[in-house]
Structure formats: C-alpha cells, structure tokens
C-alpha cells in the first residue's frame, strides 16, 4: 500500500520530455524568493545553527519531550493518540469519525496523511473528504498526489485548473488565475461552514504548553481548526519542540526558506478544545503522533534527516527536482529530503534510484534552514546499497573487475592505455564520442574523447630530462 511507484528513471525521462511540465516548473521561482527573504538576516548562519541545535536537542531526548507534550496537551483536554504504522493512523481517524458521527471532513495540508492514503481510507468508509489548501484541492479534483510539499499543484497550469473546475463545479470556464482562485474560495467556503471534522497536519508540537503549531498562508489551517466540531491533527514523532521561544527561532527560518516571507500569514497555536463560554473552536481536539518508520533513524547516521521542518527549500534549489518535478520521485516526499526519507521510511531496497537522483552539488545542504547534510546522507545511502549488495549485477561485476585491476598497477596501466587510445580513435577528427555502447549516458550529450595517452604515460615522459 505504501511502497513507492517503481520506475524512477522512466518517469524522470518522461518528465524531461514533457513540455507542459517543463513550462509549469518554470512558473515558480521559490529559490529567488528565498534569496530575497533571507537577505535581512545578517546573522543567518548563526540562526541556522541555533535552529539545528534546537532540533537536535529535541531528538536527543525525544521520548521525554513527547511524554511532556502528551502530559501538557492532555491536561488541557487534547486527546493524544499514537500511531506505529500508516494503518494505525487511518484506523484512529476512522474510529473518531465514526464515534462522533461526522459525514463531511475538511482537511488542511497534511503530508503524513498522504503517507497513509488517509483520504482513500476515509472515502472507503463512506466519509466525504475535501482538501482545502488550494493546491491540494486541485490535486484532489484531478485524482493525483502533490508534487511539491508546499506547492502541491506546481505541475498544473491555469488551463488544467480551469478544466477541473468546469468538470467538478459545473461553472462557466474561467482562465484568469484571480477568477479561478475566487471560484475555489466560494466553493470551499461552503465546505468550511458545513464541515464537521477538520483534519490538519502539525508543523510542530510544543512540549511546554501541549500546543499544536500550524502555519498557513491561505487561512485554511485556521478554518479547519476553528469551525468544525472535531479537530484531528496528524504529525510525526520528530515534530516536537521544547518551548515557545524555540519555535519562534525556527519560525524565523521556516517561512523565509519556503516562500521568502518573513512570517507566514497565519501562525496558529491550538491548545485543547473549546473552553467554557467560547463561541468557536472544536468540541474535541485530537493529536495523532506518528512513527511509521521515523524512530528507525534515531541513533543512526541518518538521524539528522529528522531535523527537517518541511520548508521545501532543498527541492526548490535542486537541479534534478527542478527538471523532473515531484511525481518522478514516486512517493510522498520529493527532492533531496525525499531521496533521504523515502529509503529510510519504507526501505532502501524499495527506493534504489532515489539516493542516486542527485548530483551531490550541495545546493540543498547550503540552503537547508536546519543544516541537514543532505548530500552526505545521500552518499551514505549509496554506500549502504553497495554494502547490502542492492546494486545491479552489472555494476557490482564492473566494480569488482575494476578493483581487481586497480590493485595490479601493470595490468591497470596496460588497460587504461588501450582505453585511452581506443577512445581517441573512436573520437575521430573532432575528438568527440557521440555514442557509448550499452549505456544511456550519450543519449542526451556527447563525451569528449581522451587525448590518447594516460596520465601515467604523460607523467613518465615529463620526468625524463
């Protein structure tokens, strides 16, 4: 159910040749927005270090911080649930929905619920589920999945949206983006006012006060947690942060890294259900704390990945993501962080291509607000693939042969000499190899031919008087 769609290479190839995707990806320039956004923080590096250290502090005693969160949240009337697996998440939500007899469920963004295919599970039980983040709503109408963690419909253009709205709203076709947004506002407002359960993600859990910390620009997070009579928040075990001051420090980087804003339009802390006399707010508030593979990273050389605050900066700066889009990655989290989280959450053997889907250029590492060494983690995952014998047999055989030769200098020199001369011969007059056998490398580019002599030969010659 939760395995990734195999075939990364084929999908990447398709996306590269899909003119519509290529144009759509260029509509967004979130990398430039981030650059403008961080310009007013002269001590950006120190703040990144501080934010990383806050995340590390939480992860180092995660059990105790979670217990403290649970204790403080429970004291204020929040019901805390624990989900070990994706199936647990769906089961808990369905149980709450059944017990409280809700029919319509409105959702603000939750990537964890994408992991568990919660919408499908709820619909199978007869509940109506409406995504309310505009991008998520578009993706839901299209029957697709998000292709970016903060801009879910990055792969769609206005014509796609117009077609979907005609089909699902039965309204006259609009192509102006402003008019399309207003149409979505009108339809979703009805859902907000009639939704009986609101499901949200959780950007952070604050242990000090037992609060859920939620960030949105559209205001759908506020609607979802204010209007329906039941609120269920779903978030990962790693999202707990000690204090209000700690989350304030991280917030300074979250919006800047994501969209370049100094702060998101709506930052909301929900601490328990409706209080006596309140005219709004839910009668019940639930928080589901999810493991689903996360604790496997603790205490390993992958732990730093759990610092992630889901800003999307790594994918916005990734030359691979920017060319192939999020769907090519085949699971919930795309881009560099996806290439690290997916193999860790659902198994290295289920995501063989992902750690290799990077040039290790370190753009992602440089912009990550919590200093996750993403290229380093991808390199370690590549090593693990080799250690566990998960690479294709041709590659393993090739490396074995190369290692055998490399340990025998005479044979190695002889082989490289032949290769260099053959390369020069096949390069022809313009010294360019246009096609390498059995290898897709030259499909999209040419290879400069070797000069005809090996380094060792040239070195030996130069040493002669």
């Amino acid at each position: 159910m939760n395995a990734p769609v195999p075939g990364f290479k084929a999908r990447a190839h398709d996306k590269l040749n899909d003119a519509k995707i290529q144009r759509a990806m260029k509509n967004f320039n979130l990398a430039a927005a981030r650059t403008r956004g961080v310009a007013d923080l002269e001590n950006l590096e120190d703040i990144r270090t501080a934010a990383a250290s806050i995340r590390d502090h939480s992860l180092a005693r995660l059990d105790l911080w979670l217990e403290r969160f649970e204790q403080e949240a429970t004291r204020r009337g929040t019901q805390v649930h624990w989900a070990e697996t994706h199936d647990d998440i769906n089961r808990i939500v369905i149980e709450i929905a059944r017990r409280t007899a809700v029919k319509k469920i409105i959702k603000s963004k939750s990537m964890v619920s994408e992991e568990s295919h919660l919408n499908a599970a709820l619909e199978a039980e007869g509940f109506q589920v409406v995504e309310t983040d505009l991008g998520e709503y578009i993706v839901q109408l299209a029957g697709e999945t998000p292709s970016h963690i903060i801009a879910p419909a990055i792969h769609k253009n206005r014509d796609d949206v117009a077609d979907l709205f005609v089909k699902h709203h039965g309204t006259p076709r609009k192509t102006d983006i402003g008019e399309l947004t207003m149409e979505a506002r009108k339809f979703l407002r009805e859902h907000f006012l009639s939704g009986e359960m609101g499901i949200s993600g959780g950007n952070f859990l604050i242990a000090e006060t037992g609060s859920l910390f939620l960030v949105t620009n559209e205001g759908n997070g506020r609607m979802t947690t204010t209007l329906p009579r039941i609120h269920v928040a779903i978030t990962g075990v790693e999202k707990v942060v000690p204090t209000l001051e700690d989350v304030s420090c991280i917030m300074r980087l979250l919006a800047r890294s994501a969209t370049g804003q100094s702060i998101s339009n709506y930052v909301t802390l929900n601490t328990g259900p409706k209080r006596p006399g309140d005219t709004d707010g839910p009668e019940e508030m639930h928080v589901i704390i999810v493991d689903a593979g996360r604790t496997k990273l603790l205490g390993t050389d992958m732990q730093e990945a759990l610092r992630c605050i889901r800003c999307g900066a790594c994918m916005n700066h990734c030359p691979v993501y920017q060319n192939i889009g999020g769907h090519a990655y085949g699971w919930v989290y795309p881009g560099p962080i996806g290439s690290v989280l997916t193999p860790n959450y659902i198994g290295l053997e289920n995501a063989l291509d992902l750690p290799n889907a990077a040039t290790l250029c370190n753009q992602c590492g440089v912009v990550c607000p919590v200093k996750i060494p993403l290229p380093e983690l991808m390199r370690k995952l590549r090593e693990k693939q080799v250690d566990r014998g998960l690479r294709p047999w041709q590659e393993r055989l090739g490396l074995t042969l190369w290692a055998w030769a490399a340990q025998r200098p005479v044979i190695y020199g002889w082989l490289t000499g032949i290769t260099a001369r053959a390369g020069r011969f096949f390069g022809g007059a313009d010294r360019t190899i246009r096609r390498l056998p059995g290898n897709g490398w030259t499909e999209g580019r040419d290879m400069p031919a070797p000069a005809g002599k090996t380094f060792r030969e040239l070195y030996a010659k130069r040493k002669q008087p």
Partner: protein
Amino acid sequence: MSARDNILARIRSARGAAAASAQSDLAAIDGRINQHPVGTRPAMHWDQVPRFREQCVRMSSTVDEVASMRDVPAAVARFLTEQGLPMRAVAWPKIAHLDWTGTGVTVEDRPARGDDLVGITGVHLALAETGTVMLLSGVDTPAATSLLPETHIAVVPAGRIVLAMEEAWARTREELGELPRAVNFVSGPSRTADIEGQLQIGAHGPFRVHVIVALS
C-alpha cells in the same frame, strides 16, 4: 504493549536510555522549559511603532494611526468609506462598546458568521518585527471575527506592540500564565500562489487587513 509504549521503547533503545526517566534527563527537560532561553536572533534595534507600521505594509496590510481609542470609530468609518465597503461590521465587545454615534457605521457585538463582510477586533499584542497582530481566542474575543469576514480591521494600542514573538510569549506568561484555546498570529491578508506561482490575495480568509494603531 500499546503503540505508545512501543514507540517510546524504540526511542529509548535508540538513545541507549535504560530507565524511562533518569533524573538528569528530567532535570534537563524541566530546565529548558523553566528557562525557555531566547535563541539567536537578528539584531533588533528599531523604534517599535514605525517598524510595526512599515512591516504591516510589507505584509500587504494597510495602516492608519490615531491619537487615542476614542478616535477609532471615525477612522473605521473613513476606511470603509474610502474602500467603498458596507458601513456595517461585527466586532469584539470591547470595540463594539466604543462610541459609534455619528460615524454612520452599524456595529454588532456578536461573533462573525460566514456572510459577514467586515470584522473588527482588538489585539492581545502586536509584533514589530513582522507587522503581525496576535489574537487570543476567548469568550469576548472570538477567533471567527478575524477570519470569516472579507475585511478584518485590527485595533492596536501602541502600548501593546512588542519587539518580536519571544517578547510576546514573555508578556503572555506574565499576564495570563496559560495559553487560550487558540493563539492566532495574523500578518496581512490571506494569500495563495498555488496556481502558476502567481500571488493572489484572499484565498480563504480576509482580502483586506487594516490596522489602526491607537497611540494612547
């Protein structure tokens, strides 16, 4: 074993903690919460009122300034007239009980519904750093008033403007001790860029946020 116990046991074994609650670990947790240290921040050497106004504009709010709370109704009437908006609003009781006679604005003291067009609120505090108003939910301060209407007018007494979010937490602990059900930080109107990356104002929440700073 419950899911909870299994998850916590996995975390403990990963960090090599035998006992559930070593005294030194618990002391570290309590210490962090009690001291709630302020992390590394940018330098913040600015005059709070001008900084707040400037940042409100940066977040696409509009700003007005009046001498005192008594001048707020006239400022609201002026704004609604200029914008061609209906002269009718719902407001928090404290705002509704100002003297609105002669302004031409009908103000109702009740929580907002889905079809109200103008909502007027006070604030708990406001943040100079980001041009943000901080609203607390409560019996007399319903959250819906700043959310459902197309226009949100926030009245900010200058004395309630603090430097940044950290100062807001310090003041809130001092004044209230506990957090209410909802703390809402609002910085400008609702927005989205989910279609082709083009910024649109008024996705689900208000199209307009108008901030009236009352100097005394």
